[in-house]
């Protein structure tokens, strides 16, 4: 209460800030009850303001000294009044107040805060109109840029707010380099205040949305800027900044490339864990700041935004097969610790969601958290128990008294069922069907009824389809209160699809379809598709024709009349009248139709005219009646009916004259089968998530649908969400602008790989890794990284990296990611089971371990070895290391422990035989020769006559370290001969033979032959080159 009083006092004391004239004006308007007075008052005010502004304009030129005769306060007042007029008139007075734009711009120039504020406020309102944005957008840019770069934080805040709210309405802002730079400076600078930083992040997002090329045009900038932005999230305790940064990072993840953000997983997990698990615990360990709680729960915005970002960088095991973009994380690639934490968050949210709480707001917040986590759960490869638990928790919520909760529960159930498939579906079906049917019959709200119907649709399978359809039918027939007429149509369409999809009994299918058609709904139900579809199926399935016709006759003889039934009957009975001769005579049939003729619309009448023609052809006894009927209809007011009758009469006449039925037979040939591939009704499912799990339609081929129709089984669904096109195109577009990259594009490298700018000094560790099984991978004044390679199998390497803090300060925000050259289209190698550092902080001189496994599937180029990306902060500076791991074909040469496997030494004669054999069989295809390869670290080789001997020694040493067997021999000193077997997972193992000739100038000539043609030999030589050249 105290705070409230204090604020009240503040408002009162700041009463001075209130513009008196404006208040009077508003009070005046409110006092005039009649709209005419209202209008008059506004008009006179506009005239007055116009005069004032004009007066100030006219003095503008002449008298420089008294340039501003109007005065800031007056100008502010008038502009504020214009804003009020604009609002109170529901924007209809927009055109009348536009004259004030110039004066508003003058307000922006003012150095008085309140004047600037009012100026920005009106512009924010008006910029929502495209016309206004187009008119003044360009003129505004310099004002806004100036304010953004202003030293006065309050001015900067106003300008950033303006950009953040309406910056996307006009492209002028986003395409102005200076403005974008200024905004980014605030995002980047460590000195800008929290308040400005978070505003600038969102303003930057607005600009980025309007112009993606801000980040994608320039590769260098792309990498640096994105790193800066992503590192905003490294401080997991700074909820203020995190909250504002999450949307920007998510936008980058979704539209530029998730690979930049994948490294955030540990941070995001921490945020979520801190919020949900620690933040809700009742124990003492709960340090969650109260300011970031809402209704006694940890900040729901933070949680949902974090989950949303996680959703963007992860794919569920199911989606993985469909997704083209395998830069995304899969649950299999997340280390157990983080995955465990995330799963724990879901479990906790489910637990919280079922807790009883009295405060309504707290309940809402709790459920917000619950729903966002349950919708995320499928990505974590949940166990069966976890899914069942989630379903049970949700179904429990269906009983909630709170109507919004029921709505969202249904929504979540639909999502969960369509993403988790059978397990979730079965869990719901097992014990909750009755509850859902009960909801269907008791809910009065159309929003909810619609969701119940969607859920029932998803839950249907061949076992319960009859029950579901019966319930839905009885709902549209019996429900006393149907909230929205559209629901009927919605249900009909769904029933039609379900019956077709799951029907095992064709009679039942026909019965239900006709029943839907026979229901006489209001005009809103104008779905021709349903009866079209029925006709198509009956035409294609001879076995259905008779039953359908019999039932149609029954419907026609009944009292109730539905136009759809008449249409169906007109089409099908005309076509198959022969089949039911034993039930009804042609004359009776004619009478039936002629009776219905006058009860239906013109379109149906036209159809009946055709049916009569068909009757006439098959049953000559009705001939005279039909002719009479046509003659009558020659007087029809409808031109279509008239023409049709006339034409049919003529056709009959012609056949009589010519004495044969040739023309008629030609015109009325039996209906050929339809070949519409997919059910057009599927288009009408609307927003319902389509389940691909139940695509094994039990529909027996031939019973209901003949071959052309079995395509329903595969459900070529129309609105399967496609990955946004922009995801890649953005980065692809940038390739032509950079030299050398077109090459990588041709080789099909992932853009994220090709874009990497490697850190200086990366080569040292890269070449060392090819030579030694362990050693120093990288060293700088800040951090040292040591590595160890362990062979799990020859082609399966485990790499253990240890980061050591070299400084006296803490290193924090440590996070790493591994980028592969190719992640799809049969990649050469895969990196998996990455274990990231468990803790983002390294104390001075302490270490942090991490590991990953690389499986080499096919022969690969060492230049495309995985890149390790490390981000960390140390003493206020943000650091990024991009280092290429030294993994090549020679890394797979492995002969285990020499004691366990006695080495099979290759002798010189053996070597020569093999060398020749390879030369004979494969020729040059398997050979790679590189001459005068430079060697590093050799001093003045040619002064010493023994230099080649030293060189030979060195080369032998290096080759041995790389794993090759040196052919031990004394016959020839130079060249060196070596052999080794490289391993791959998919392609098998290959032998390689090397001849290294040392030259007097200190360079070497290398020849390599492999037992397989293709690039393998050059890949091996490349490894050697990398190693010796350093």
């Amino acid at each position, binding site marked *: 209460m105290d705070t409230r009083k204090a604020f009240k006092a503040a408002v009162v004391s700041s009463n001075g800030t209130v513009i008196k004239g404006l208040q009077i004006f508003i009070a005046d308007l409110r006092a005039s009850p009649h709209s005419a007075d209202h209008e008059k008052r506004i008009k006179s005010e506009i005239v007055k303001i116009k005069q004032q502004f004009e007066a100030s304009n006219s003095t503008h030129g002449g008298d420089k000294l008294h340039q501003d005769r109007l005065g800031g306060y007056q100008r502010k007042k008038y502009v504020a009044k214009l804003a009020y007029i604009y*609002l109170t008139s529901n924007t209809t007075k927009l055109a009348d107040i536009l004259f004030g734009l110039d004066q508003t711009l003058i307000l922006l120039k003012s150095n008085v805060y309140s004047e600037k504020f009012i100026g920005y406020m009106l512009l924010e309102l008006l910029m929502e109109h495209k016309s206004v944005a187009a008119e003044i957008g360009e003129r505004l840019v310099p004002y806004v840029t100036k304010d953004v770069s202003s030293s006065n934080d309050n001015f900067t805040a106003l300008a950033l707010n303006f950009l953040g709210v309406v910056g996307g309405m006009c492209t002028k802002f986003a395409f102005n380099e200076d403005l974008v730079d200024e905004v980014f400076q605030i995002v980047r600078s460590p000195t800008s205040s929290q308040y400005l930083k978070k505003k600038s992040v969102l303003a930057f997002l607005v600009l980025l949305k309007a112009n993606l090329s801000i980040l994608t045009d320039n590769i260098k900038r792309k990498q640096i800027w994105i790193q800066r932005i992503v590192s905003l999230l490294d401080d997991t305790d700074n909820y203020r900044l995190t*909250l504002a940064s999450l949307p920007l990072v998510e936008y980058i993840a979704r539209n530029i490339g998730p690979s930049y953000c994948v490294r955030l997983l540990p941070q995001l997990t921490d945020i979520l864990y801190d919020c949900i698990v620690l933040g809700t615990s009742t124990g003492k360990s709960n340090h969650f700041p109260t300011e970031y709680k809402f209704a006694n729960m940890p900040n729901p*915005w933070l949680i949902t935004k974090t989950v949303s970002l996680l959703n963007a960088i992860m794919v569920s095991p199911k989606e993985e097969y469909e997704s083209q973009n395998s830069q995304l994380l899969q649950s299999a690639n997340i280390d157990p610790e983080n995955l465990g934490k995330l799963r724990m968050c879901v479990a906790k949210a489910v637990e919280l969601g079922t807790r009883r709480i009295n405060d309504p*707001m707290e309940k*809402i917040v709790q459920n*917000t958290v619950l729903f966002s986590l349950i919708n995320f759960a499928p990505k974590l490869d949940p166990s069966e128990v976890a899914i069942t638990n989630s379903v049970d928790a949700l179904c429990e919520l269906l009983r909630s008294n709170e109507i919004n909760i029921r709505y969202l529960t249904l929504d979540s159930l639909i999502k969960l069922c369509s993403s988790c498939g059978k397990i979730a579906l079965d869990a719901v079906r097992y014990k909750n069907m009755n509850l859902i049917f009960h909801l269907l019959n008791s809910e009065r709200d159309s*929003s909810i009824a619609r969701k119940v119907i969607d859920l029932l649709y998803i839950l249907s399978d061949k076992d319960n389809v009859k029950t579901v359809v019966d319930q839905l039918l009885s709902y549209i027939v019996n429900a006393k209160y149907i909230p929205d007429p559209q629901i009927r149509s919605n249900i009909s369409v769904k029933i039609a699809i379900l019956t077709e999809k799951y029907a095992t009994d064709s009679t039942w299918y026909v019965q239900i379809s006709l029943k839907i058609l026979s229901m006489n709904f209001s005009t809103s139900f104008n779905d021709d598709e349903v009866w079209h579809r029925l006709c198509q199926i009956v035409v294609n399935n001879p076995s259905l024709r008779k039953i359908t016709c019999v039932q149609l006759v029954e419907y026609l003889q009944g009292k109730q009349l539905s136009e759809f039934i008449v249409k169906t009957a007109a089409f099908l009975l005309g076509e198959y009248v022969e089949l039911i001769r034993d039930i009804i005579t042609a004359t009776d049939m004619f009478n039936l139709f002629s009776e219905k003729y006058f009860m239906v619309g013109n379109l149906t009448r036209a159809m009946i005219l055709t049916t009569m023609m068909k009757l006439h052809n098959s049953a000559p006894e009705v001939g005279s009646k039909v002719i009479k009927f046509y003659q009558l209809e020659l007087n029809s007011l409808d031109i279509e009916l008239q023409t049709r009758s006339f034409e049919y009469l003529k056709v009959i006449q012609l056949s009589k004259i010519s004495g044969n039925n040739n023309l008629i037979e030609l015109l009325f040939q039996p209906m050929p089968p339809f070949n519409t591939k997919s059910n057009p009704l599927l288009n009408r499912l609307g927003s319902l998530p389509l389940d691909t799990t139940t695509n094994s339609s039990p529909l027996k081929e031939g019973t209901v649908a003949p071959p052309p129709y079995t395509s329903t089984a595969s459900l070529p669904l129309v609105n399967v969400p496609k990955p946004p096109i922009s995801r890649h195109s953005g980065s692809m577009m940038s390739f032509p602008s950079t030299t050398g990259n077109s090459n990588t594009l041709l080789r099909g490298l992932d853009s994220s790989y090709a874009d990497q700018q490697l850190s200086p000094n990366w080569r040292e560790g890269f070449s060392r890794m090819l030579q030694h099984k362990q050693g120093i991978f990288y060293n700088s004044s800040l951090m040292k990284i040591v590595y160890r390679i362990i062979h799990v199998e020859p082609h399966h390497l485990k790499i253990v990296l240890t980061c050591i803090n070299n400084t006296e300060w803490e290193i924090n925000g440590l996070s790493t990611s591994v980028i592969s050259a190719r992640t799809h289209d049969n990649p050469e190698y895969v990196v998996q089971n990455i274990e990231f550092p468990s803790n983002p902080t390294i104390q001075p001189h302490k270490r942090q371990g991490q590991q990953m496994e690389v499986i080499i599937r096919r022969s690969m180029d060492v230049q495309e070895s995985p890149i390790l990306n490390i981000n960390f902060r140390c003493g206020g500076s943000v650091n990024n290391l991009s280092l290429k791991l030294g993994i090549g074909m020679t890394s797979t040469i492995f002969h285990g422990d020499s004691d366990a496997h006695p080495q099979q030494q290759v002798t010189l004669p053996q070597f020569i035989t093999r060398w020749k054999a390879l030369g004979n069989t494969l020729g040059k295809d398997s050979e790679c020769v590189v001459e005068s390869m430079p060697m590093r670290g050799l001093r003045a080789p040619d002064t010493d006559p023994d230099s080649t001997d030293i060189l030979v020694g060195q080369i032998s040493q290096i080759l041995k370290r790389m794993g090759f067997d040196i052919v031990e021999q004394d016959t020839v000193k130079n060249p060196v001969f070596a052999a080794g077997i490289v391993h791959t997972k998919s392609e098998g193992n290959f032998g390689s033979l090397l001849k290294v000739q040392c030259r007097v100038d200190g360079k070497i000539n290398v020849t390599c032959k492999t037992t397989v043609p293709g690039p393998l030999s050059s890949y091996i030589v490349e490894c050697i080159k990398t190693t010796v050249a350093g």
Partner: protein
Amino acid sequence: MSHIKYLLLVSRQGKVRLMKWYQPLTEKAKTKIINDLTPLILGRKPKMCNILDYSDHKVIYRRYASLYFIIGITPNVDNELLCLDLVHRYVETMDVYFGNVCELDIIFNFAKAYDILNEMVMCDGSLAESSKKEVLYAVQTMDGMDDNDKLEKVLS
């Protein structure tokens, strides 16, 4: 990612008191939304669900005293309940600022009402600040600036 399309404040009499469009729409589309939603929402009974499907998006609304807060959101992107939370936080914040806020406060101090909203929500409905205290602090700093301006003016 948040995708609030618009936020409207409509009085029980159907007058729009505040509106904010986070998406460029034509005048016609805006008028249509207002004209469609106002009677639809005012006509709903108190016990009804606060979420509606309207044309291609979802509409969340909540009534506080004589005012209806209406938010249009992109389905499957934003969490519906979160919007209710957002509305509640907005109301709470105005409540503290104005001291038991009522419709009149919003009419007479429309600039402040917009200002508070802007402090909280930017860029397509992304939340800029969830802390009530921070928002109020920012708004009051601005009020303070106003006062200073005034003082300087008097002194000069």
